[in-house]
């Protein structure tokens, strides 16, 4: 294999990057293009819409409570994220820094819970939620996910890695565990909390199977399963389907662009649990 001339290496590298990035994003670009097409132009060839229009977005918003879908997803994702942060911080701190009988046993128990996939629990959980009368409520979409073994595990590991001297100093000053958690541990845990928040928000926003089975009322649908409904109704109007999908994509896309570091760290940490 002959070597390339040096002056060619850089342009070729950028060309390869550009082509690869373009291919990866292409399906999303065609979706974006479809959302700006009128019914008449929908099947017109070319990647760019011949006459860009907002018709599809207007139709989508008139026919479907898109704002409500997004609000549902937002309420659910934010509540779960907040709950996961609270529970994970307090349990993680207790498992890392408070001495009590059976601590390592309890930690082992939490780690073993990491192995249980949602696909195993969702049927009994459905029956339980049904008995609670939680079908078609935010309760069903939030409460079962607030205690997350992964979050507890991650924060326990992080708080344990903080220098012991800080905690000793606070103890000597007479601070109780709650005050230490709030004033010493949490401020230092901010990067881990940010990463966990990003990870939890994303995975809750993406939840599909669970909302599909516990929500059957249009007003309570989350954005994900609302898309499934729109797809089954608008069999031929792909521009409307595309418009709804782009509107659903925007919040996570914006969050990702604004907090890419937190997302990347969250995924790296979350992936490392194994």
């Amino acid at each position, binding site marked *: *294999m002959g070597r390339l001339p040096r002056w060619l290496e850089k342009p070729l*590298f950028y060309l*390869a*990057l550009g082509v690869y990035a373009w291919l*990866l*994003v*292409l*399906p*999303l670009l*065609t*979706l974006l293009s*479809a959302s700006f097409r009128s019914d008449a132009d929908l099947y017109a060839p070319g990647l760019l819409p011949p006459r860009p229009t907002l018709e599809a977005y207007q139709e989508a918003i008139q026919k479907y409570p898109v704002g409500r879908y997004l609000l549902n997803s937002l309420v659910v994702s934010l509540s779960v994220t907040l709950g996961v942060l609270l529970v994970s911080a307090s*349990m993680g701190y*207790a498992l*890392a820094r*408070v001495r*009590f009988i059976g*601590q390592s046993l*309890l930690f082992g128990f939490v780690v073993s819970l990491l*192995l*249980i*996939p*949602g696909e*195993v*629990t969702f*049927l*009994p959980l459905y*029956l*339980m939620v049904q008995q609670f009368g939680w079908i078609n409520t935010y309760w069903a979409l939030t*409460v079962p996910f*607030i*205690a997350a*073994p992964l979050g*507890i595990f991650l924060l326990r590991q992080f708080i344990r*890695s903080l220098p*012991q001297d800080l905690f000793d100093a606070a*103890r000597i000053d007479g601070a109780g*565990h709650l005050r230490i958690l709030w004033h010493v541990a949490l401020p230092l845990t901010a990067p881990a909390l940010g990463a966990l928040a990003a990870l939890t928000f*994303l995975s809750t926003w*993406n939840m*599909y199977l669970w909302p599909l089975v516990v929500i059957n009322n249009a007003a309570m649908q989350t954005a994900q*399963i609302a*898309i*499934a409904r729109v*797809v089954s109704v608008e069999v031929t109007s*792909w521009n409307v*389907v595309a418009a709804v*999908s782009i509107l*659903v*994509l925007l919040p996570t*896309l914006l969050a*990702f*662009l604004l907090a890419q570091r937190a997302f*990347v760290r969250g*995924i*790296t*940490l979350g*992936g*490392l649990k*194994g």
Partner: protein
Amino acid sequence: MMVKEQDFSRRSSAYHVRPGGETLEALFLLAPGLILLLIFLVWPTLNAFWLSFHRENLLGTQREWVGLANYAEMLRDPAFWRAVGATFLFAAIVVPVQIFLGMVAALMVARPFPGVNFFRTLFFLTTAVPTAVAAVAWGWFLHPVGGLLNRWLEAMGLPPQPWLTSVELALPTLAIVTAWAGVGFTAILLTAGLQQIPEDLYEAARIDGASAWRQFWHITLPLLSPTLFLVALLTVLNSLTAFGQIHLLTRGGPAESTMVWVYRIYQDAFFNFRFSYASAQAVALFLVLLLLAGLQFRWFGRRVHYG
């Protein structure tokens, strides 16, 4: 691994608390989470096993103990085995494709260069795309009439393909969609892994005149193996439990060709109203996932290089 746990938690002698003296405070911090874990995770898990040993009457109102009858039926059920076959075929396509695509992306953006952040954003972007949106994007990209892919095939003089509506093509097509949706995730983890490899190893190799290809095989791949192993495990587990994109694009069809394991469970529980039979299949899936995780650690765990 990528994050080394530094354990500073040596027991200091600065203060003395008798063992168990902080149990009350611990209880206060632990109780809410522990109660939630027991109700919404432990109990349903036990219940999944309990359900799988029962069977409901035709009205679904009462359950009676049937022992292993559900499992016996499952093992004789051709529909179940078809679902298992489809699931493994699906995973066998998703895992290599997703790791390859993610690896190419990670190799390009792991080291800094002018504009690296822009390309990282693009390569990692699919992590921010919800499953349903990814499915719809591909549904349109592969559309028989309006889809860009078939347009290109026609332009090249090839016949357009019924990507999602043919019995042979639907499952592989869904696997590609799934792999695409996972590229960002894989690229993020592999990039983090690549950045852990010390730069001076490559410098030394260059001085010795090693080609880029040899550097990849003798430095990158061995040192990346722990990350690669982890990514493989996560990708396998994810692809064996795929559901959303399949529900949205093919509903298990055509002719049940994309009826994977989780979809079978969903179908049996919510359309055939056989919760206990579905539970038996869910428990079987759980055992397979555990077995695979264990096997992967035993067989590959020893051979990977922990730098």
